[in-house]
């Protein structure tokens, strides 16, 4: 069982939208430590030059071949890669643990840019289900609409959809920020544990169902609240943060954030922290 301690860098971590606990003891889980951010290193990552740009036409490629080619281009130092003709193919641009400007000129299918850590991605089309699933860090911008499970289980980074998204946006998310310029479907923020979701338009039924923590900000109408999702007062720091995020997201800088509804967990379902030690003990 891991022990939780609070770091002295709490304020810095929290200002970055991260949580600040550090786990010690026997555990495989590692939390973010702002002191280590500069030294973080993944095996197999590359030094790339953002000014070194190339194009890759994937029209006649399967996803594994296209992804290997992207990896190969990064190994050659290309820091900006433009993908031509993605044509709704699944699983493109996945598993990139590198700094990279990745631009898709078209739409992606399911599981696009999943399990990434670091790249800045722009998709000039729509995306299918589970876009950017498990995103650790970086920024993903979708210019059109997105399918369901947008940003499932993300840990960090910014995920932006300028159009509307399907159901279960941010399901099980553990950090990061999801911003939606249009409407969102049912079960937005389902079981979310941390992080923030901003939807400027309307949302469907069961908003924030079974959420454990995190914040959801809604600009339009709410279909219905899910289990244990409750409204909370919008603070001045919330408003400042929302304005800053919308500006960075290039969505709608002039949106009146003061009229947004803030949703948080009522924490009546908070049995998780009590049960977790038992579950982990069983696993170990």
């Amino acid at each position, binding site marked *: 069982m891991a022990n939780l301690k609070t770091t002295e860098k709490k304020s810095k971590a929290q200002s970055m939208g991260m949580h600040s606990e550090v786990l010690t003891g026997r555990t495989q889980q590692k939390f973010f430590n702002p002191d280590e951010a500069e030294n973080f290193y993944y095996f197999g990552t590359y030094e790339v030059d953002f000014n070194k740009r190339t194009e890759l036409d994937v029209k006649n490629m399967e996803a594994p071949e296209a992804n290997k080619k992207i990896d190969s281009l990064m190994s050659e130092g290309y820091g900006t890669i433009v993908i031509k003709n993605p044509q*709704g193919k699944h699983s493109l641009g996945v598993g990139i643990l590198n700094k990279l400007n990745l631009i898709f000129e078209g739409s992606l299918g*399911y599981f696009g840019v999943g399990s990434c850590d670091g790249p800045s991605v722009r998709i000039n089309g729509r995306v299918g289900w589970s876009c950017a699933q498990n995103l650790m860090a970086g920024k993903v911008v979708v210019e059109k609409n997105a399918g369901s499970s947008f940003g499932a289980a993300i840990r960090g980074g910014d995920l932006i959809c300028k159009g509307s*998204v*399907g*159901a279960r946006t941010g*399901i099980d998310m553990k950090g990061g920020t999801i911003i939606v310029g249009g409407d969102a*479907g049912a079960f937005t923020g389902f079981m979310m544990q941390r992080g923030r979701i901003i939807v400027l338009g309307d949302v469907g039924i069961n908003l924030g169902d079974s959420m454990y923590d995190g914040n959801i900000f809604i600009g339009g109408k709410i279909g219905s609240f899910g289990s244990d999702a409750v409204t909370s007062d919008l603070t001045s720091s919330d408003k400042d943060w929302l304005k800053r995020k919308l500006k960075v997201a290039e969505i709608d800088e002039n949106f009146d954030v003061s009229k947004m509804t803030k949703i948080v967990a009522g924490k009546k379902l908070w049995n998780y922290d009590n049960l977790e030690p038992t579950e982990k003990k069983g696993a170990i």
Partner: protein
Amino acid sequence: MGSRYLFGLFAVVKKGNIIMCGIAGLIHKDKSVNIGSELQSMLQALKHRGPDSTGYALYADNDGQNFIMRFKVGENVGEGSNAVNEETSVYDKRKKIVDKNLSDLGAIIVKEERLTPYSFRYEIKYDKDLMEFSKKIESAEMTEILSIGKSLELIKDIGDAKEVCDRYNLDKITGTHGIGHARMATESGVDIKSAHPFWGYPFSDVSVVHNGQLTNYWNNRRALENKGMRFMSECDSELIAVYLAEKMRNDATLEEGMKDSLKGLDGVFTYFVATKDSLGMAKDTMAAKPLVLYESDNLVAMGSEEIAIRSILPQEIDTYDPFDGEVKVWQI
């Protein structure tokens, strides 16, 4: 906590495959095209979602004078099916019984085609009640009407989209709209009777395809059977066709029936329904099954995945996912 989400993912994995089917549909509002070929391309793009069987409901440019009846007198049997393959001579005997029954009903066979040893396409003149007609025809052993209509051509068999298309020469069929299904068998065996689309018995020109799972199948089935509706398979998807047919039999419009189905059917589903002059889609209130939709002034194309649409529209287009509980119907 995360384990709940992961459990949800693992729960849909069986034998290394994600349990799912693929559905596709399109409607050209102002012209006829090679609809068989277009739907074949869309369904072939979805082959990975359902390799067991493929079905087409094509709304063809027939002259509208006579009924087209597609029927089978035997099965093509795959894994898990409780049906059996039989000798061609057995099929011949059943065909003779069907022909006699047609004669007894006063129906005139204008044209007949034998497409496989077990499946047929008849063009018939008939102007009486279709329910009585269907009961009489299907009284012959192992005989099932796949579809009846002035426009509907419903074809389904084991194999992927191209194999079925080639077997039945579907790429030559022109028309305005159609729906199709690539099936991964989960609730019943691999055979024709469990394949989609399902005809909306006893209505001419009504067909349904479905991706999902219905959890109140048996309750609904018993209730509908008590009202005189018939089921030919144990496939839960057949319920949608029968459910809608029963609603329409009680004077509901197609759209009203579809909206009722959002409450009347439990489970997860996205389904398409087509009639002689319309195409509709419905998505369950939890939006648990995928659907991508493209809509322009003269064309609507939709499928379980965008690659299905891309197979006929490779250029950059705007598509979207319909929301939970959404019902849409388009007319020619």
